[in-house]
C-alpha cells in the first residue's frame, strides 16, 4: 500500500516535507495504526503517539486523507491510496505526527472539568435519578482525543480564546449533572463572544468525532440555557 507521511524534525533544521512510503501489508482486518507501526519498525525515526490501540485512550488522533481520525480504529481497507497522514491541524507540531496538545488542554481546564458541590460529603454516593443520569449520555463518553476541536476553524483562528467543541461538550456534561451546584458560575464562565459564541454550528466536530458524539448539540443546549436565564 502507498502512504504519504508528514515528516518534521525540528532538530534537523529542515522544513517539514511529505515522505512517500510503500508497505507490503494485507489490509484485511487491519487498522491504520498497524500499518504505521509496521512503517515505524522499518524506520524508527517516525514519531507518533499511541497507547491502547482500541479507540479508548485517544492518543493516536491524526489527519488521515483530510479527516481527523483515530488511527487505531480506522480500517486500512476503507482508505483510498496514497493514504495521506498529517498531524492534527491547528496545533503546533512537535515532531512528525506528534502535536503540542497544551492549547487544547488549557481550554479543557478552563471549564473546570470536575464536580463542584459544596454540600457535606455524604456517607455513601450522591444518587441520581435514571432521568438525571440519562442527561449525561452523549457527553461523558468523550476521550479528549482533540479530533473535533482541531477540525474546528473557529478554534484554528482563536485557539487562545475559543473553548472549542471538546471543552464545550465537557462544560455541558457538568452543567447537565444533577449533582453539580455551579451551573450559574459555569454559564458565566462561558458567556463570552469568544469562549462560546465563536461556534457557528458548522458541525465539523460532529463529522470528526470518532466516538460518534455531538458537541454541536451540547453547545446548542448551553446557548438555550443562556437564553432562558436572560429572557
Amino acid at each position, binding site marked *: 500500500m502507498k502512504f504519504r507521511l508528514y515528516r518534521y524534525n525540528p532538530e534537523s533544521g529542515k522544513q517539514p516535507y511529505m515522505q512517500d512510503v510503500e508497505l507490503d501489508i494485507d489490509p484485511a482486518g487491519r487498522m491504520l495504526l498497524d500499518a504505521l507501526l509496521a512503517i515505524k519498525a522499518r524506520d524508527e525515526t517516525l514519531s507518533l503517539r499511541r497507547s491502547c490501540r482500541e479507540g479508548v485512550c485517544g492518543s493516536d488522533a491524526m489527519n488521515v486523507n483530510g479527516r481527523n481520525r483515530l488511527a487505531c480504529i480506522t480500517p486500512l481497507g476503507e482508505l483510498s491510496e496514497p493514504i495521506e497522514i498529517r498531524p492534527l491541524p491547528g496545533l503546533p507540531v512537535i515532531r512528525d505526527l506528534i502535536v503540542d496538545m497544551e492549547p487544547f488542554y488549557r481550554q479543557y481546564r478552563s471549564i473546570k472539568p470536575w464536580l463542584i458541590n459544596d454540600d457535606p460529603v455524604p456517607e455513601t454516593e450522591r444518587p441520581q435519578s435514571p432521568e438525571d443520569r440519562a442527561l449525561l449520555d452523549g457527553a461523558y463518553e468523550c476521550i479528549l482525543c482533540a479530533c473535533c476541536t482541531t477540525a474546528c476553524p473557529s478554534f484554528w483562528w*482563536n485557539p487562545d480564546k475559543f473553548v472549542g467543541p471538546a471543552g464545550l461538550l465537557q462544560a455541558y456534561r457538568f452543567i447537565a449533572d444533577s449533582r453539580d451546584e455551579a451551573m450559574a458560575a459555569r454559564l458565566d464562565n462561558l*458567556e463570552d463572544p469568544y469562549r462560546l459564541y465563536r461556534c*457557528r454550528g458548522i458541525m465539523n466536530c460532529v463529522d470528526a468525532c470518532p466516538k460518534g458524539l455531538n458537541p454541536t448539540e451540547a453547545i446548542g443546549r448551553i446557548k438555550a440555557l443562556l437564553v432562558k436565564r436572560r429572557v
Partner: protein
Amino acid sequence: MKLAVGAHTGTGTWLMQRATAIVLSLALPGLTIHFMLAWPVDFAGWQALFAPLWMRVLLLLTVLALALHAWVGVRDILMDYVHFTGLRLALYLAVIITLAGSVAWLAAVLWSQA
C-alpha cells in the same frame, strides 16, 4: 500574556442574529413575490408600489433586520480574522457607518417627495 475573557455578553447578539434571520426568511420571499407580480414596471409604477405606508414601513423594517443581521455576521468574521484590536475597532466603525448610513438613506428615499 494573560487574556481578558468572560465578557458576559454575546447571548443578545446571537439571539438578534436568529431573530433577524426569521424576519428575513419571511419578509424577503414575500417582498420578492410582491415585486415579481408587478413586473415589468415603469418609473411611475415603481413609485406606486411604494405609495402605501405599510409597504414603506415593511421594507424599512426588513432592511433594518438585514443590517442588524449583517452587522453580527461581519463582526463575527472580523473577530475571527482581525486580531489587532485597534484595527478591528476601526473596521467595526466602518461597517456600522456603512450599514446605518444605508438604512438612513433608504428611509430618506422612501419618504422623499419625488
